[in-house]
């Protein structure tokens, strides 16, 4: 029996629901972390990709600020290779909540020459870090709040809630500061900054339960829709201008939803008919592929990919 078969045939004792109290506990922890950012930094911002995790963070930030107004801007790193639904959603969100949106355009970095693409249709995901660091420097941000979760990936599982970055934006995994109780050491020298992760302790299941409970709006591509795709290496690759079919490949139309939103060139949907957060939860409970593995082409490359990117300044 292969390890995979053994795993699949093992008795399931996975839980199927998340209690309200449990979500309240996570919510309070996140709100408290966000208030540390509001009160403890001069120029903080929230990084918002309009993905579900960053939208949960934004929702929590508005709760942490209430009944006051959100005291910090939202930053979107725009690769220029977006799903149009996500950009429409971004504009809608800004209007609805009166957000102060700052966009870091990858195209600006390309124009400046700080990013050089090998070829026009290359995945822009690896280059986001450069535009992100330029946006941080240009705005002199001292804390960037992000929606990373520790259950996503091995390197993230090791990261502190308040993650110190040097003046080159680098993470030094071997020299992380101890983090004791909720007494965060937020002291920095000139030019350094923090990445802050209020939903570090949330799992994907928690996120979806919270989205359902709080009725948090997401871009439409998170729910089932028909899309032209190609089956390639076990992934459903969406057919777009940037990711056209290769010679000999057949385009098919499938019911799909996205589990993350990112650069068009490297984000794949999964087959799904889930049309609400509750239906996604049902699917998530039975999911057998962890989130990043199923949907991100670039993370498949190797185990250490994320850690390397983080060291360079990626979220």
């Amino acid at each position, binding site marked *: 029996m292969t390890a995979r078969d053994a795993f699949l045939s093992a008795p399931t004792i996975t839980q199927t629901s998340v209690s309200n109290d449990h979500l*309240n*506990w996570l919510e*309070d922890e996140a709100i408290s972390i966000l208030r540390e950012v509001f009160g403890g930094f001069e120029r903080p911002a929230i990084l918002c990709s309009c993905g579900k995790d960053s939208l949960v963070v934004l929702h929590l930030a508005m709760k942490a600020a209430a009944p*006051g107004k959100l005291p910090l801007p939202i930053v979107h790193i725009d690769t220029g290779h977006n799903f149009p639904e996500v950009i429409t959603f971004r504009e809608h969100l800004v209007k609805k909540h009166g957000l102060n949106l700052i966009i870091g355009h990858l195209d600006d970095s390309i124009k400046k020459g700080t990013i050089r693409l090998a070829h026009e249709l290359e995945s822009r995901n690896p280059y986001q870090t450069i535009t992100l660091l330029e946006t941080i420097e240009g705005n002199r941000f001292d804390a960037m709040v992000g929606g990373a979760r520790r259950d996503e990936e091995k390197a993230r599982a*090791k990261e502190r809630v308040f993650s110190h970055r040097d003046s080159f934006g680098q993470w030094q995994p071997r020299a992380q500061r101890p983090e004791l*109780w909720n007494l965060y050491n937020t002291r920095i020298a000139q030019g350094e900054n923090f990445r802050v992760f209020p939903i570090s302790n949330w799992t994907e299941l928690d996120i979806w339960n919270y989205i359902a409970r709080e009725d948090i709006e997401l871009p439409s591509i998170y729910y089932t829709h028909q899309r032209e795709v190609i089956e390639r290496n076990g992934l459903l690759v969406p057919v777009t201008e940037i990711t056209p079919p290769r010679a000999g490949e057949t385009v098919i139309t499938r019911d799909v939803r996205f589990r993350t939103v990112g650069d068009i060139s490297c984000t794949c949907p999964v087959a799904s008919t889930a049309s609400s957060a509750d239906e996604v939860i049902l699917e998530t409970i039975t999911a057998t592929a962890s989130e990043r593995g199923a949907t991100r082409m670039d993370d498949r490359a190797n185990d250490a990919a994320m850690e390397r990117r983080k060291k360079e300044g990626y979220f």
Partner: protein
Amino acid sequence: MSNTPHSAASRPLRFITCGSVDDGKSTLIGRLLYDSKALMIDQLESLANSSKTARGPQSKEGQLDLSLVTDGLEAEREQGITIDVAYRYFATPKRKFIIADAPGHEQYTRNMVTGASKSDVAVVLIDVMKLDFSQPAVTLLPQTKRHTAFAALLGLQHTVVAVNKMDAIDFDASRFERVVTAFGELAASLKIKHFTAIPLSALDGDGVVAHTARSAWFQGPALLPHLESLVLDDAHGTSATAKAHVAVQWVTRDVSDDHLRWVTGDVAEAAIKVGDAISVFPSGATAVVAALRTGRGDTTTAEPGEAVAIRFDRQVDIARGDWIMAGSVSDTPLTQRASATLAWLDNAPLTLGRRYIVRHGARWLPARVSAISSRLDLASAEWQTGDGAGAEVKANDLVRAEIEFAQALPLAAFAESAARGAFVLVDPGTNATAAAGMIQ
């Protein structure tokens, strides 16, 4: 919207695995994740790939090396050791768990302390293959003692001793008992009131989710059912007369009325209620709570652990770093000098008399350590005064010290209030977190 405050019963149980290098911490966590199906297929496949190349010295042919589940950093995989604490999540139908997988190497103790400060339970692994059973008394490894001491001082609510690799000694019950006796002595000198010891094999799974024929002689629970059954008490130490304290994190204005100010922070020690009379540290101002909000909306009561926004019945001068204290000014005594336990974490040793920066609540202020009164000797697990006590305080040392703050603070003994009893000491030159402090 629902307005149930979270209770200790329904929040996740956070436990830290401690012990020396190679005691089997990573294997045990891999086993728990595997047996509770918290691993996903692709993680499993990547594990199967890694197991072929990097294989632990004692892993058996054809078996997945479950320890590889948790080692997340490149340096860790290359060197085959755990450097930093990794957090893992899994759930059973009964409970959700957050595991802090702490590194075993002495030089990474600071990362173990990081994990322990946010844990409820210490699971101390003991590797029976490393113990000498030829002598009448079994001697535990120094790192087992060190981790247990840190966990005890950080006030973790429960201690579980996982006596691991029992498969290697044929699940010998008498050797297990001798390990329990040795740990009992350590627990007594560290004032750990209660612990549960469980014989198991992280590698084969006996005693983890359930006991097997090999461990059937053992009368107690298996590890996972035991963790599921542990009762958490978040109000530990606080008496019925405890009063609410809130370290102020941030102050904001109501969008609907610029004159209304809201003060935010986490409730500690006791519930705060609309109508409560409060005083403010340091101004001494007094006011009455007029309105409260949590993430769930408006409320009349906020429980300890809840993140709250508070509005008062009058304008009060208040800012980040202040404290809101239920009752009158005289209800919370202020102290400037205190005895504290310091867990020294920085590579740079302590300099007596030097000005450090301390964080207490949300307040930063200067402080200095004036004297060392005793230090924990790991061999005997006893606090030693006298000559040795005054020697250099280095990374991973535990000492009792006299500390003087630049200002009198609403301090409390750590055993009574973690919120007012804990502080961190920061090196003002490097901004490194130098020590964890607990008021005695």
